[in-house]
């Protein structure tokens, strides 16, 4: 009861202080609502002016200057605007400048690159093509004129959560240059964002100070400090992002949370059950709990027990799941190689060639919206069936596996122990097999590498080369614009609810005299609803974590070493090395990385290795009374 009491006192005194301070004035959330409306009006006005300059064919300099005014106005509005309507911002205002499929519509309707990022590319090109730019500005102008009519209520909860969500966005998407593909104005943008947050949080300063003055001092001084630091370090390439993260982003992120909890203001968890994987109730952007892995799987929480994980592990290592009783999941996903297999492409069933692609790591694979290199499966549970029926993989059917497993008393007991106790003997089902394997695979999580521990302040020192490498990864080398921190995969922050794929132009074999584009069309032919030209040769962005263990690299395993991979990117991907890749989403410009910079990036990537506690195998496999020959099978399979 003590804790409750303390909290109540805090909450009460804060609000008494607040109301005593400004009894007749407007409440904070009202002031901020009005400010946000005015920020949107300003944004809309600046866009209209840009439109007018384009219509009158003003000079490129004038147009670019006006565009920067637009960006400033947008960035002032962004932290609340994007929190309140993230889908609108992505679809129409500041999404990646790519062709996309219109969501939830009849057939495949393609939308052209639009919004601020498309404009950034068009207006900062060598010359401006008005015929291309004007429709983009007009559409943006229409969207904002519509948006101005829509009311979005803002509450104290929203202000605090929007600010914290923005800190993740600012670090992972803003400072990496993600949303300024051509103008490169990301540090100045970050200053505007932080100023906007600071302006609104100042309204709470007296109240927060009355709750806990030392904490308030940290919050407001770091906020001020972050702005000052970034104003003094505007150079994109040389900005020390690790310093910014540790010194400013994480402390501000933590202190706002402190006051959110201490003030008794409700949290998003009390407002909706339908939340994205982002979990705001943590103190560090590199906390393992920042992303809630249970949001990616359909396994009911109450079933997700250690016994089920153990059963899943047994199934994972059991070759009885395959048609010839010789192959298990572990055959291509070897724990000692972070659950990849070291082959260019894994060996196919009965040694008849190979499967079509390279075996990816399974560690942290749960943090995905879609699965496989071509994103064809929508859930971990669905993915398993693809492997089972593939002629090159298990070459069997779900029903064949079930009838085998059902013939083992030991398996029956293991399933009964995990599922419905009243349904003894009947728990081996399609869904329960998927659940068990999904429970095990989703337990393969790792956010505890030396680099993570340093960011969280759990270790005090870091190799300077790793620090340089991280800053390059997140800045000049542009790796972080697709491999998003903190997962360093293609699951998009700050909500982590969408997986991305990219067209890199990976060659079939980079080590031959004449290099040609890999023939695998990837996502473009993976399913009917992704059948578009811009998904041809597109593959899922994998995680960088544990990359030291998962070579060879790329969807086709064509690159032997990280040095070779870095060389490919440094040249601008497939187009950069002269291949014809019209839909390449990777910039074809050189990154201008020196050999020592490449070494630093590799050192950083290798500091993300952590497989602790994830590599154990079952000590035995269940027995089959009627099939003594099966009982000799090898744990993990023969090959």
């Amino acid at each position: 009861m003590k804790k409750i009491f303390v909290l109540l006192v805090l909450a009460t005194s804060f609000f008494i202080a607040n109301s005593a301070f400004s009894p007749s004035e407007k409440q904070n959330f009202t002031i901020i609502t009005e400010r946000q409306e005015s920020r949107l009006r300003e944004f809309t006005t600046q866009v209209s002016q840009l439109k007018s300059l384009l219509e009158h064919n003003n000079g490129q300099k004038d147009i670019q200057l006006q565009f920067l005014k637009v960006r400033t106005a947008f960035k002032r509005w962004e932290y609340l605007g994007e929190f309140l309507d993230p889908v609108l911002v992505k679809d129409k205002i500041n999404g990646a400048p790519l062709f996309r499929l219109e969501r939830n519509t009849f057939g495949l309707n393609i939308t052209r690159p639009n919004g601020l990022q498309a404009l950034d590319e068009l207006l900062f090109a060598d010359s401006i093509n008005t015929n291309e730019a004007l429709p983009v500005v007009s559409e943006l102008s229409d969207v904002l004129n519509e948006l101005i009519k829509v009311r979005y209520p803002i509450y104290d909860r929203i202000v605090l959560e929007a600010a914290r969500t923005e800190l993740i966005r600012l670090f992972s998407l803003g400072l990496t240059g993600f949303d300024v593909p051509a103008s490169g104005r990301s540090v100045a943008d970050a200053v505007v964002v932080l100023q906007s947050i600071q302006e609104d949080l100042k309204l709470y300063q007296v109240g927060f100070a009355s709750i806990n003055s030392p904490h308030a001092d940290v919050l407001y001084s770091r906020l001020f400090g972050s702005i000052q630091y970034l104003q003094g370090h505007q150079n994109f390439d040389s900005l020390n992002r690790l310093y910014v993260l540790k010194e400013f982003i994480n402390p501000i992120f933590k202190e706002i949370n402190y006051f959110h909890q201490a003030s008794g203001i409700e949290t998003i968890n009390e407002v909706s059950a339908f939340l994205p994987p982002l979990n705001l109730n943590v103190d560090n952007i590199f906390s393992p709990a920042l992303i809630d892995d249970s949001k990616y799987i359909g396994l009911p929480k109450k079933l997700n027990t250690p016994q089920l994980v153990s059963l899943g592990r047994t199934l994972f290592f059991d070759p009885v799941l395959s048609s010839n009783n010789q192959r298990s999941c572990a055959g291509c996903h070897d724990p000692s190689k972070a659950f990849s297999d070291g082959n260019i492409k894994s060996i196919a069933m009965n040694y008849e060639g190979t499967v079509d692609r390279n075996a990816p790591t399974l560690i942290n694979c749960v943090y995905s919206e879609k699965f496989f290199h071509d994103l064809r499966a929508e859930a971990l549970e669905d993915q398993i069936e693809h492997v089972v029926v593939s002629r090159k993989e298990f070459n069997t059917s779900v029903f064949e596996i079930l009838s085998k497993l059902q013939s083992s008393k030991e398996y029956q007991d293991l399933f009964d122990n995990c599922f419905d106790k009243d349904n003894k003997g009947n728990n081996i089902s399609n869904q329960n097999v998927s659940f068990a394997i999904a429970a095990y695979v989703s337990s393969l999580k790792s956010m505890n590498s030396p680099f993570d521990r340093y960011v969280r302040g759990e270790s005090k020192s870091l190799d300077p080369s790793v620090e340089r490498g991280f800053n390059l990864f997140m800045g000049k080398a542009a790796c972080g614009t697709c491999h998003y921190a903190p997962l360093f995969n293609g699951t998009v922050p700050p909500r982590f609810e969408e997986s991305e794929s990219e067209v890199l132009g990976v060659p079939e074999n980079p080590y031959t005299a004449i290099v040609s584009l890999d023939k695998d069309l990837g996502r473009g032919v993976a399913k009917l609803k992704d059948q578009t030209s811009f998904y041809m040769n597109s593959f899922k962005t994998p995680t960088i974590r544990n990359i030291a263990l998962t070579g060879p690299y790329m969807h086709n395993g064509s690159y032997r070493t990280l040095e070779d991979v870095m060389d490919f990117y440094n040249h601008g991907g497939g187009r950069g090395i002269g291949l014809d890749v019209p839909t390449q989403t990777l910039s074809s410009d050189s990154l201008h990385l020196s050999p020592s910079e490449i070494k630093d990036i590799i050192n950083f990537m290798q500091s993300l290795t952590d497989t602790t506690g994830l590599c154990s195998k079952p000590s035995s496999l269940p027995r089959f009374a009627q099939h003594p020959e099966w009982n000799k099978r090898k744990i993990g399979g023969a090959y």
Partner: protein
Amino acid sequence: MKKLLLLSTIGVCAFAQADAQIPFPVHIATDWTTQTVLMPKSPLMYQNIFIGGLDTVQTTNTYGFAGGGVPAKQWHDYIAFVKDSAAVGDLGWVVVNHEMTTKNDYVGDGGGMTTFKLKRTAGDKLEVVKQTLPDGRTGKFFNVDFVNTVGETGMNCGGITKNGRVWTAEEWMQSSNSAIYAGGTGFRDTTDFVIGTTTPAGFPAFNGKTLKRYQNLNWLVEVNPKTAKAVRKQYNWGRAGWEGGVIMDDNKTVYMFEDGSPGILGKFVASTPGDFTVGQMYVYKHDALTKWLAIENNLDTLVNLNTVAIRRGATMFNRLEWGAVSGGKIYICETGRDAFAYNSGIALKGVISPSLVDGYKIRYKIVNGVDFPGTDAAAADSVRNGRFFDYYGRVIEFDPATDAVRSYIEGGPYTATATSKDLPYYPSKHLSNPDGIDFLTVKGKTYMMIEEDLNGSSYNRMPNGFTQTVCELYLLDMSIANPTISDLQRLSACAPGAEITGAVQIDNKTILVNSQHPNSSNIAPYNNSLTYAISGFDGSDKLSIFEQAEVKTNAFSVYPNPAARELHLSKVMDVAIYSVTGARIKVLRNTQTVDVTDMASGTYFIRSAEGETVKFIVE
């Protein structure tokens, strides 16, 4: 405990003075509440009947693979129900469309349908009856064979049920063989299709004619639910992105609705009642003298019906979905689209539907506070030029007696004005992108069932900040003249990410509903497509099943709606919900309803801004 009480009282006073955003205490004392509201058990009973991906369907020999049991396809869309009480207690056959389109060695490439027979058992529960079909298949669920009968099917969305006959609509227009082949993941067979070469039948007027394989998709297709076999593709009704249709009581006139932008409204009149292989096809053109353009019965024309129709000046709708008949009028969902313009291409030849003109004018009035000053032609021009952000959609009414179409209820509430009488109910009464529609009769009263399929969460279609879509099934009492959003009653909400669809009444007790393509990360079984039953519509006589008596307190009053699982408040307010131990579990601002669907049975407290607390018990 005394101290706690005192402190929370102080807190409340401070706020009342400051006209503040009420900070609901994290914990409250729970021993001083006298008022109790009872949220009775729902009079409705929910039962999962058919789960995609998990239930086993029986297949016929297909592509050289032997028939047998395989997991059912997913993405349940339209549900057809055909009464069949030949065996005692049996209710009839249920046929479920699978909109999912994939390659499958056993159930066939493309989409498909599953048929099964239901009976009622003790306690009003439903049971799927084990059957043996004429072709020898035995089991509970049967895959409807399209591959060996009419060529494959695909994108099976809506449909038509009339006099025990069922048609499925192949929406999602296909335009090339390579697209349907999908790199080997779609349709394996891309050879030409010759009409009349499959059993049981081809099509009288077109036997021997050749279609590209992709052109054998996007028709309405008749199926026999009792034999689990397709009968024929309705080539004479034209090929378009058909999403749904209705057959009128004359058993001759068919209306068809196209999901396209522009989408068309089609009509077919059979020469003889019940024989839909011979008759005349038309397309709607509201500004023509006869209102309908006759379409010649020529396969080349019929294969490209949408293009032909728009070129001839047909009326253009913004994505028609399903329709249903009540009182002789046809109600059709025009689901809307986040952006569209009809100022280029063949769309320039078409004419803007009066329903869109209505929608534009209604929106104009909300935004500007005055009626649209121009003519309907001027409003139509605005729509044509893309000035109508039609992200809500509407239900439209078509009157066969006058051939006139109008907006019946606009989606929304559109939030541009604070004075709308619909706004306080947001988001619990909030209609976005209506898609499925049918009628429900409860104790002599007719309700429209409207099912949502959200096109997105932007522009407040979900409460702000939430990107996951939750689609709802609303009821609308048809005796209400000029209905608005506040007249809607929420009956069911489906799993996040899913589209709620297929709602059909099977008798006086039960409706069946589908939840399709949910987020695969929903907790099982809500991670799969699902056909579920809602039963109990024949319950208690005293009160409408949608309302319970209200309990008044000093500052506000509460009444439970057990059917919708909602507490209704007497006014728009901020409230917090506390657990039995006084721990705050929910805070709702600016609301008039509290959804208790996800709350386990037990005791809770609801606290108003003024600090008044009422106990409520969820049974």
